[in-house]
């Protein structure tokens, strides 16, 4: 074995991986070759140094990080990560959703006058009705107006004033706020003054329209009488208004969503013999007087009905309510508003 062959096997000799024959041949060469012995000593020192090299240590938390990756992730978290975690998906998705919600909100607000009115709580309901043109209200969202024949009949029954040619009386009764807003201010002031004077003279002879009413009607509260006279005076005032150049357009309804959900102004107790029959009769009465029932609930053995009645039908409503049973009203107003909100408790 020459020096080249011997040096090729020195590394294996150090690792004791040679068979006996190779080891003996190398040993024989090394005994007679100082250069190869020096080579072997150098190699042995190198291997010795390598065996003493420090082992680097894994960073702290390495095991925890590996285990966090290994543990199974529930399917919903994987799905959530897949959909929402990449910012390239998450951010545009959220921005788009916000934009859609904003556009939808603005669209609904503009298309629905009731919502627009509700968003401005400091404005009076009457002005909001004047601001909202009748054509702008979508039929699906606006409250359904009372059928015209009923309102016409009630108007004749309550006021006793013959309807003017062209149907101006009926529309004048139910669109009073709109007409008030458009009519000259002087005419309105005169009409109100006259109505107040007549209501103060409760003992004065009733207006001509009242003479036509049936005598079988029960005694009415003073307020209803005053209202009747006021109706008459307002009717005359309306007659004056017809001479004025201002033309009041017919409003489709005076029941705004805001007024229907407002708390009642008046409350009354109706004591009857048959509560269910009285409930039905009350519903008929509400429809007949151009009003609307806004809520109905049971409180023990009593039924509480919340309703709104227009100013024109309020007097007839209170009067006919007395025919259903014993009716007592609390807190009579000094002036009847365009829309009267009542809460009537029916008990046996």
């Amino acid at each position, binding site marked *: 074995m020459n020096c080249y062959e011997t040096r*090729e096997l*020195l*590394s*294996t000799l150090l*690792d004791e*991986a040679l068979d006996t024959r190779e080891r003996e041949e190398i040993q024989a060469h090394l005994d007679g070759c100082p250069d190869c012995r020096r080579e072997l*000593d*150098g*190699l042995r*020192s*190198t*291997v010795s*140094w*390598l*065996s003493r*090299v*420090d*082992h*680097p*240590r*894994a*960073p702290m938390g*390495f*095991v925890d*990080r*590996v*285990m966090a*990756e*290994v*543990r199974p992730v529930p399917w919903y978290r994987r799905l959530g990560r897949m959909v929402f975690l990449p910012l390239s998906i998450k951010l545009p998705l959220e921005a788009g959703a916000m934009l859609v919600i904003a556009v939808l909100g603005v669209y609904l607000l503009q298309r629905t006058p009731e919502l627009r009115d509700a968003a401005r709580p400091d404005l009076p309901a009457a002005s909001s009705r004047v601001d909202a043109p009748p054509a702008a209200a979508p039929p699906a969202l606006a409250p359904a107006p009372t059928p015209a024949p009923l309102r016409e009949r009630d108007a004749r029954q309550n006021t006793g004033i013959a309807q003017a040619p062209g149907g101006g009386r009926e529309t004048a009764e139910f669109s009073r706020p709109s007409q008030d807003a458009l009519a000259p201010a002087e005419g309105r002031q005169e009409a109100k003054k006259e109505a107040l004077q007549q209501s103060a003279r409760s003992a004065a002879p009733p207006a001509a329209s009242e003479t036509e009413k049936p005598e079988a009607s029960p005694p009415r509260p003073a307020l209803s009488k005053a209202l009747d006279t006021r109706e008459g005076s307002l009717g005359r005032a309306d007659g004056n208004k017809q001479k004025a150049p201002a033309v009041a357009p017919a409003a489709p309804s005076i029941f705004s969503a805001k007024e229907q959900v407002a708390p009642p102004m008046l409350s009354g107790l109706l004591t009857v013999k048959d509560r269910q029959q009285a409930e039905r009769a009350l519903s008929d009465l509400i429809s007949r007087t151009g009003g609307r029932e806004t809520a109905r609930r049971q409180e023990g053995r009593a039924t509480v009905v919340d309703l709104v009645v227009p100013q024109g039908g309020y007097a007839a409503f209170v009067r006919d309510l007395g025919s259903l049973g014993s009716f007592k009203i609390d807190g009579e107003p000094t002036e009847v508003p365009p829309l009267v909100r009542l809460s009537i408790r029916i008990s046996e």
Partner: protein
Amino acid sequence: MSWGTFFPRYGLTVREGDAADDPGFLERLRAGDARAFEELVASHQHRVFGVALRMLGSAAEAEDIAQEAFLRAHRSLPEFRGDAKLSTWLYTIVSRLCLNRLASRDRKAVRHGEEVLLRVADPRGDPQTDAERGELESALHRAIAELSEERRVVVILRDLEGLSYEEIAAALGLELGTVRSRLHRARMDLKDKLERFLP
């Protein structure tokens, strides 16, 4: 965390390969016992990380590769037949991952600079600590880093990690003669570079 993983986790002791290869432990690993796998990671983390660090020279890259090695091992554990020791199996995985990383196009582009060699020469990252450490140790690290990848991985597995020729051949998919030859060349290179320290 069990007592089996507490001490290795904080470096108080290291459970070496043969002890981890008892049949019960292997059975638990194959069955997907998370605690057994945690014990395996805790006991082999330093050696697997060490191979990756010496091969790649970057601590961050080495941690990435070591973590990937354990994740692959976890996925392959049900198919692990136990023909080789667990430690050898892990060395196989991490060595091949390192060689693949070094052979990648991006890595090759970086390798031509001196930065990688310097970092490999001093895996703890700070060249100024060379003065504080022994001159021989620094020269040894640098000499290892300057070896070719094929020779470096063989000398690391043999002289630093203590694998046998047969285990190295199986881990790297080489002939036994190729392992002997590469190891001899690597040692001779190191000896030549450390000539001045020889007596």
